[in-house]
Protein backbone atom coordinates (compact mmCIF):
# COMPACT_ATOMS: atom_id res chain seq x y z
CA UNK A 1 0.00 0.00 0.00
CA UNK A 2 2.90 2.35 0.81
CA UNK A 3 4.29 1.88 -2.71
CA UNK A 4 0.90 2.25 -4.37
CA UNK A 5 0.36 5.83 -3.19
CA UNK A 6 3.43 7.36 -4.93
CA UNK A 7 2.72 5.38 -8.11
CA UNK A 8 -0.88 6.60 -8.18
CA UNK A 9 0.27 10.15 -7.41
CA UNK A 10 2.58 10.15 -10.44
CA UNK A 11 -0.14 8.71 -12.69
CA UNK A 12 -2.65 11.29 -11.43
CA UNK A 13 -0.18 14.13 -12.01
CA UNK A 14 0.32 12.92 -15.61
CA UNK A 15 -3.46 12.68 -16.11
CA UNK A 16 -4.00 16.18 -14.65
CA UNK A 17 -1.26 17.61 -16.91
CA UNK A 18 -2.82 15.89 -19.93
CA UNK A 19 -6.28 17.21 -19.00
CA UNK A 20 -4.83 20.73 -18.64
CA UNK A 21 -3.16 20.47 -22.06
CA UNK A 22 -6.41 19.23 -23.64
CA UNK A 23 -8.42 21.99 -21.97
CA UNK A 24 -6.10 24.86 -22.91
CA UNK A 25 -4.65 23.74 -26.26
CA UNK A 26 -6.72 20.98 -27.89
CA UNK A 27 -10.28 22.05 -27.02
CA UNK A 28 -11.86 24.21 -29.71
CA UNK A 29 -12.66 27.83 -28.87
CA UNK A 30 -16.33 28.56 -28.20
CA UNK A 31 -17.93 30.65 -30.93
CA UNK A 32 -19.83 32.89 -28.49
CA UNK A 33 -17.77 33.00 -25.31
CA UNK A 34 -14.25 32.72 -26.72
CA UNK A 35 -11.54 31.20 -24.51
CA UNK A 36 -13.17 32.01 -21.17
CA UNK A 37 -15.54 29.05 -21.60
CA UNK A 38 -12.52 26.79 -20.88
CA UNK A 39 -13.21 27.45 -17.18
CA UNK A 40 -15.87 24.75 -17.63
CA UNK A 41 -13.09 22.11 -17.66
CA UNK A 42 -12.30 22.92 -14.03
CA UNK A 43 -15.67 24.23 -12.82
CA UNK A 44 -17.91 21.33 -13.87
CA UNK A 45 -15.59 18.41 -12.90
CA UNK A 46 -15.09 20.09 -9.50
CA UNK A 47 -18.88 20.31 -9.06
CA UNK A 48 -19.42 16.66 -10.02
CA UNK A 49 -16.61 15.55 -7.71
CA UNK A 50 -18.08 17.59 -4.83
CA UNK A 51 -21.52 16.03 -5.44
CA UNK A 52 -20.02 12.54 -5.44
CA UNK A 53 -18.15 13.21 -2.19
CA UNK A 54 -21.27 14.62 -0.52
CA UNK A 55 -23.16 11.53 -1.70
CA UNK A 56 -20.50 9.28 -0.11
CA UNK A 57 -20.79 11.37 3.07
CA UNK A 58 -24.58 10.92 2.98
CA UNK A 59 -24.34 7.12 2.61
CA UNK A 60 -21.64 6.81 5.29
CA UNK A 61 -23.71 8.98 7.66
CA UNK A 62 -26.84 6.86 7.13
CA UNK A 63 -24.80 3.71 7.72
CA UNK A 64 -23.31 5.22 10.87
CA UNK A 65 -26.72 6.27 12.22
CA UNK A 66 -28.20 2.86 11.34
CA UNK A 67 -25.35 1.02 13.03
CA UNK A 68 -26.44 2.38 16.45
CA UNK A 69 -28.82 -0.59 16.91
CA UNK A 70 -29.00 -3.98 15.14
CA UNK A 71 -32.74 -3.47 14.52
CA UNK A 72 -32.24 -0.10 12.77
CA UNK A 73 -29.34 -1.59 10.79
CA UNK A 74 -31.59 -4.34 9.47
CA UNK A 75 -34.46 -1.91 8.75
CA UNK A 76 -32.12 0.50 6.91
CA UNK A 77 -30.81 -2.38 4.78
CA UNK A 78 -34.32 -3.31 3.62
CA UNK A 79 -35.32 0.32 3.07
CA UNK A 80 -32.28 0.84 0.83
CA UNK A 81 -33.08 -2.34 -1.15
CA UNK A 82 -36.69 -1.13 -1.52
CA UNK A 83 -35.51 2.31 -2.73
CA UNK A 84 -33.37 0.59 -5.38
CA UNK A 85 -36.17 -1.67 -6.66
CA UNK A 86 -38.95 0.95 -6.55
CA UNK A 87 -36.68 3.60 -8.07
CA UNK A 88 -35.66 1.42 -11.02
CA UNK A 89 -39.24 0.27 -11.71
CA UNK A 90 -40.59 3.83 -11.35
CA UNK A 91 -37.98 5.20 -13.79
CA UNK A 92 -39.66 3.29 -16.62
CA UNK A 93 -43.28 4.18 -15.74
CA UNK A 94 -44.79 6.73 -18.19
CA UNK A 95 -46.23 8.81 -15.32
CA UNK A 96 -42.80 9.20 -13.76
CA UNK A 97 -41.09 9.76 -17.11
CA UNK A 98 -43.34 12.78 -17.67
CA UNK A 99 -41.91 14.30 -14.47
CA UNK A 100 -38.31 13.87 -15.61
CA UNK A 101 -36.45 16.92 -16.92
CA UNK A 102 -36.54 17.21 -20.73
CA UNK A 103 -33.84 15.14 -22.37
CA UNK A 104 -33.12 13.00 -19.30
CA UNK A 105 -33.26 9.31 -20.15
CA UNK A 106 -35.10 6.92 -17.76
CA UNK A 107 -32.01 4.67 -17.77
CA UNK A 108 -29.95 7.61 -16.39
CA UNK A 109 -32.43 7.99 -13.53
CA UNK A 110 -32.49 4.22 -12.89
CA UNK A 111 -28.67 4.13 -12.75
CA UNK A 112 -28.61 7.06 -10.31
CA UNK A 113 -31.19 5.39 -8.05
CA UNK A 114 -29.29 2.08 -8.20
CA UNK A 115 -26.17 3.89 -6.98
CA UNK A 116 -27.86 4.30 -3.56
CA UNK A 117 -28.01 0.56 -2.63
CA UNK A 118 -24.74 -0.15 -4.47
CA UNK A 119 -22.81 2.50 -2.51
CA UNK A 120 -24.66 1.60 0.70
CA UNK A 121 -23.53 -2.03 0.66
CA UNK A 122 -20.03 -1.37 -0.67
CA UNK A 123 -19.32 1.34 1.90
CA UNK A 124 -20.78 -0.84 4.68
CA UNK A 125 -18.52 -3.72 3.64
CA UNK A 126 -15.30 -1.72 3.17
CA UNK A 127 -15.67 0.66 6.12
CA UNK A 128 -16.90 -1.27 9.15
CA UNK A 129 -17.69 0.29 12.55
CA UNK A 130 -16.05 3.61 13.36
CA UNK A 131 -14.37 3.79 9.94
CA UNK A 132 -17.78 4.87 8.58
CA UNK A 133 -17.48 8.04 10.61
CA UNK A 134 -13.89 8.52 9.42
CA UNK A 135 -15.08 8.18 5.82
CA UNK A 136 -17.92 10.65 6.47
CA UNK A 137 -15.64 13.40 7.78
CA UNK A 138 -13.08 12.71 5.03
CA UNK A 139 -15.59 12.97 2.19
CA UNK A 140 -17.22 16.08 3.69
CA UNK A 141 -13.94 17.95 4.07
CA UNK A 142 -12.62 17.12 0.60
CA UNK A 143 -16.11 17.82 -0.82
CA UNK A 144 -16.02 21.30 0.73
CA UNK A 145 -12.66 21.97 -0.96
CA UNK A 146 -14.10 21.03 -4.38
CA UNK A 147 -17.30 23.01 -3.69
CA UNK A 148 -15.16 26.05 -2.80
CA UNK A 149 -13.51 25.76 -6.22
CA UNK A 150 -16.96 25.69 -7.84
CA UNK A 151 -17.94 28.85 -5.98
CA UNK A 152 -14.71 30.62 -6.93
CA UNK A 153 -14.47 29.60 -10.60
CA UNK A 154 -18.21 30.24 -11.24
CA UNK A 155 -18.04 34.02 -10.65
CA UNK A 156 -14.74 34.19 -12.58
CA UNK A 157 -16.63 32.81 -15.58
CA UNK A 158 -19.77 34.89 -14.94
CA UNK A 159 -17.99 38.26 -14.84
CA UNK A 160 -16.86 38.32 -18.50
CA UNK A 161 -19.88 36.36 -19.82
CA UNK A 162 -22.81 37.82 -17.82
CA UNK A 163 -21.17 41.09 -16.87
CA UNK A 164 -21.73 40.38 -13.16
CA UNK A 165 -19.89 38.28 -10.59
CA UNK A 166 -23.01 36.83 -8.97
CA UNK A 167 -26.70 36.74 -9.83
CA UNK A 168 -28.45 37.40 -6.51
CA UNK A 169 -31.50 35.19 -6.02
CA UNK A 170 -30.52 32.73 -8.74
CA UNK A 171 -31.57 29.31 -7.43
CA UNK A 172 -28.57 27.34 -8.78
CA UNK A 173 -26.07 29.78 -7.32
CA UNK A 174 -27.89 30.25 -4.02
CA UNK A 175 -28.50 26.53 -3.45
CA UNK A 176 -24.82 25.79 -4.15
CA UNK A 177 -23.79 28.44 -1.62
CA UNK A 178 -26.25 26.95 0.92
CA UNK A 179 -24.79 23.48 0.24
CA UNK A 180 -21.30 24.80 0.93
CA UNK A 181 -22.48 26.50 4.14
CA UNK A 182 -24.19 23.30 5.36
CA UNK A 183 -21.01 21.26 4.97
CA UNK A 184 -18.84 24.01 6.46
CA UNK A 185 -21.14 24.01 9.52
CA UNK A 186 -20.86 20.19 9.58
CA UNK A 187 -17.06 20.51 9.76
CA UNK A 188 -17.26 23.29 12.36
CA UNK A 189 -19.55 21.10 14.48
CA UNK A 190 -17.10 18.23 14.29
CA UNK A 191 -14.11 20.46 15.02
CA UNK A 192 -15.42 22.32 18.06
CA UNK A 193 -17.94 20.03 19.76
CA UNK A 194 -16.55 17.68 22.41
CA UNK A 195 -19.84 15.99 23.25
CA UNK A 196 -20.11 12.20 23.09
CA UNK A 197 -23.03 12.74 20.70
CA UNK A 198 -21.03 14.82 18.17
CA UNK A 199 -20.62 12.00 15.67
CA UNK A 200 -24.34 11.17 15.76
CA UNK A 201 -25.35 14.87 15.49
CA UNK A 202 -22.94 15.40 12.59
CA UNK A 203 -24.30 12.31 10.82
CA UNK A 204 -27.88 13.61 11.21
CA UNK A 205 -26.84 17.05 9.88
CA UNK A 206 -25.12 15.37 6.92
CA UNK A 207 -28.26 13.42 6.02
CA UNK A 208 -30.32 16.63 5.91
CA UNK A 209 -27.53 18.53 4.18
CA UNK A 210 -27.38 15.97 1.38
CA UNK A 211 -31.00 16.79 0.50
CA UNK A 212 -29.68 20.04 -0.97
CA UNK A 213 -27.61 18.15 -3.59
CA UNK A 214 -30.61 17.12 -5.78
CA UNK A 215 -31.99 20.66 -5.38
CA UNK A 216 -28.72 22.10 -6.72
CA UNK A 217 -28.60 19.58 -9.56
CA UNK A 218 -32.23 19.80 -10.72
CA UNK A 219 -32.69 23.52 -10.07
CA UNK A 220 -31.69 24.48 -13.62
CA UNK A 221 -34.52 22.37 -15.02
CA UNK A 222 -37.32 23.25 -12.65
CA UNK A 223 -36.66 26.94 -11.94
CA UNK A 224 -35.90 29.96 -14.03
CA UNK A 225 -32.17 30.52 -13.71
CA UNK A 226 -29.35 32.33 -15.43
CA UNK A 227 -27.05 29.31 -15.14
CA UNK A 228 -26.35 27.44 -18.41
CA UNK A 229 -28.21 24.21 -19.10
CA UNK A 230 -26.56 20.90 -18.16
CA UNK A 231 -23.86 19.65 -20.51
CA UNK A 232 -24.84 16.00 -20.10
CA UNK A 233 -27.97 14.27 -18.83
CA UNK A 234 -30.29 16.13 -21.18
CA UNK A 235 -31.28 19.71 -21.91
CA UNK A 236 -28.01 21.05 -23.26
CA UNK A 237 -25.86 20.37 -26.28
CA UNK A 238 -22.09 20.24 -26.47
CA UNK A 239 -19.52 19.61 -29.15
CA UNK A 240 -18.39 15.95 -28.80
CA UNK A 241 -14.72 17.04 -28.66
CA UNK A 242 -15.49 19.41 -25.79
CA UNK A 243 -17.48 16.71 -24.01
CA UNK A 244 -14.61 14.24 -24.38
CA UNK A 245 -12.16 16.71 -22.82
CA UNK A 246 -14.62 17.48 -20.04
CA UNK A 247 -14.83 13.77 -19.18
CA UNK A 248 -11.03 13.41 -19.29
CA UNK A 249 -10.77 16.37 -16.93
CA UNK A 250 -13.33 14.79 -14.60
CA UNK A 251 -11.41 11.51 -14.56
CA UNK A 252 -8.24 13.43 -13.62
CA UNK A 253 -10.07 15.27 -10.82
CA UNK A 254 -11.62 12.02 -9.57
CA UNK A 255 -8.19 10.39 -9.32
CA UNK A 256 -6.86 13.47 -7.54
CA UNK A 257 -9.84 13.50 -5.13
CA UNK A 258 -9.29 9.81 -4.41
CA UNK A 259 -5.66 10.45 -3.41
CA UNK A 260 -6.59 13.47 -1.29
CA UNK A 261 -9.33 11.42 0.44
CA UNK A 262 -6.86 8.61 1.05
CA UNK A 263 -4.45 11.05 2.76
CA UNK A 264 -7.25 12.69 4.76
CA UNK A 265 -8.54 9.27 5.83
CA UNK A 266 -5.09 8.30 7.15
CA UNK A 267 -4.83 11.68 8.89
CA UNK A 268 -8.15 11.09 10.68
CA UNK A 269 -7.02 7.62 11.80
CA UNK A 270 -3.78 9.14 13.13
CA UNK A 271 -5.77 11.88 14.89
CA UNK A 272 -7.89 9.25 16.65
CA UNK A 273 -4.79 7.28 17.58
CA UNK A 274 -3.29 10.40 19.21
CA UNK A 275 -6.56 11.13 21.05
CA UNK A 276 -6.63 7.56 22.32
CA UNK A 277 -2.99 7.82 23.46
CA UNK A 278 -3.80 11.08 25.30
CA UNK A 279 -6.79 9.40 26.99
CA UNK A 280 -4.65 6.41 28.03
CA UNK A 281 -2.00 8.74 29.43
CA UNK A 282 -4.59 10.70 31.43
CA UNK A 283 -6.05 7.45 32.75
CA UNK A 284 -2.61 6.18 33.73
CA UNK A 285 -1.88 9.51 35.45
CA UNK A 286 -5.19 9.44 37.34
CA UNK A 287 -4.62 5.81 38.46
CA UNK A 288 -1.10 6.62 39.65
CA UNK A 289 -2.24 9.66 41.67
CA UNK A 290 -5.12 7.64 43.17
CA UNK A 291 -2.66 4.94 44.26
CA UNK A 292 -0.31 7.57 45.72
CA UNK A 293 -3.06 9.23 47.75
CA UNK A 294 -4.42 5.94 49.15
CA UNK A 295 -1.75 5.28 51.91
CA UNK A 296 -1.89 8.97 52.83
CA UNK A 297 -5.61 8.85 53.49
CA UNK A 298 -5.22 5.65 55.54
CA UNK A 299 -2.46 7.14 57.67
CA UNK A 300 -4.47 10.32 58.30
CA UNK A 301 -7.25 8.33 59.97
Amino acid at each position, binding site marked *: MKRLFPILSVLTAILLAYALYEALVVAPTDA*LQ*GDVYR*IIYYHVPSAWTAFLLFFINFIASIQYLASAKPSTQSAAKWIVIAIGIVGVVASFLPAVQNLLPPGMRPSAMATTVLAIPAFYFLIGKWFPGDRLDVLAVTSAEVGVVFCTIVLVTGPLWAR*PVWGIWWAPGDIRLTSTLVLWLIYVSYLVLRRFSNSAQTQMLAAALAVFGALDVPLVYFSIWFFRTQHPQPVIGGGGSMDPRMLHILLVSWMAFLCFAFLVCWSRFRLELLQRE*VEQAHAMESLAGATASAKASLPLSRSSR
Partner: protein
Amino acid sequence: MNGIKFLFAAYIATWVIHGVYLGSLVQRFSRLRRELKELGKGK
Protein backbone atom coordinates in the same frame (compact mmCIF):
# COMPACT_ATOMS: atom_id res chain seq x y z
CA MET B 1 -14.87 38.40 -25.62
CA ASN B 2 -11.56 38.95 -23.84
CA GLY B 3 -11.73 36.70 -20.83
CA ILE B 4 -8.28 35.18 -20.90
CA LYS B 5 -7.27 36.80 -17.59
CA PHE B 6 -10.40 35.34 -15.96
CA LEU B 7 -9.58 31.93 -17.42
CA PHE B 8 -6.08 31.98 -15.94
CA ALA B 9 -7.37 33.41 -12.66
CA ALA B 10 -9.82 30.48 -12.38
CA TYR B 11 -7.16 27.86 -13.13
CA ILE B 12 -4.65 29.45 -10.74
CA ALA B 13 -7.31 29.83 -8.01
CA THR B 14 -8.18 26.13 -8.33
CA TRP B 15 -4.59 25.04 -7.74
CA VAL B 16 -4.02 27.60 -5.01
CA ILE B 17 -7.05 26.21 -3.11
CA HIS B 18 -5.83 22.62 -3.59
CA GLY B 19 -2.31 23.66 -2.61
CA VAL B 20 -3.44 25.38 0.58
CA TYR B 21 -5.54 22.35 1.54
CA LEU B 22 -2.72 19.89 0.82
CA GLY B 23 -0.36 22.12 2.81
CA SER B 24 -2.74 22.04 5.77
CA LEU B 25 -2.90 18.22 5.54
CA VAL B 26 0.91 17.96 5.59
CA GLN B 27 1.09 20.35 8.56
CA ARG B 28 -1.52 18.36 10.50
CA PHE B 29 0.26 15.09 9.69
CA SER B 30 3.60 16.35 11.01
CA ARG B 31 1.98 17.83 14.17
CA LEU B 32 0.21 14.55 14.96
CA ARG B 33 3.32 12.44 14.31
CA ARG B 34 5.34 14.71 16.62
CA GLU B 35 2.62 14.49 19.28
CA LEU B 36 2.49 10.70 19.01
CA LYS B 37 6.27 10.49 19.29
CA GLU B 38 6.23 12.66 22.43
CA LEU B 39 3.49 10.52 23.96
CA GLY B 40 5.58 7.43 23.23
CA LYS B 41 8.61 8.98 24.94
CA GLY B 42 6.56 9.81 28.04
CA LYS B 43 5.75 6.15 28.66
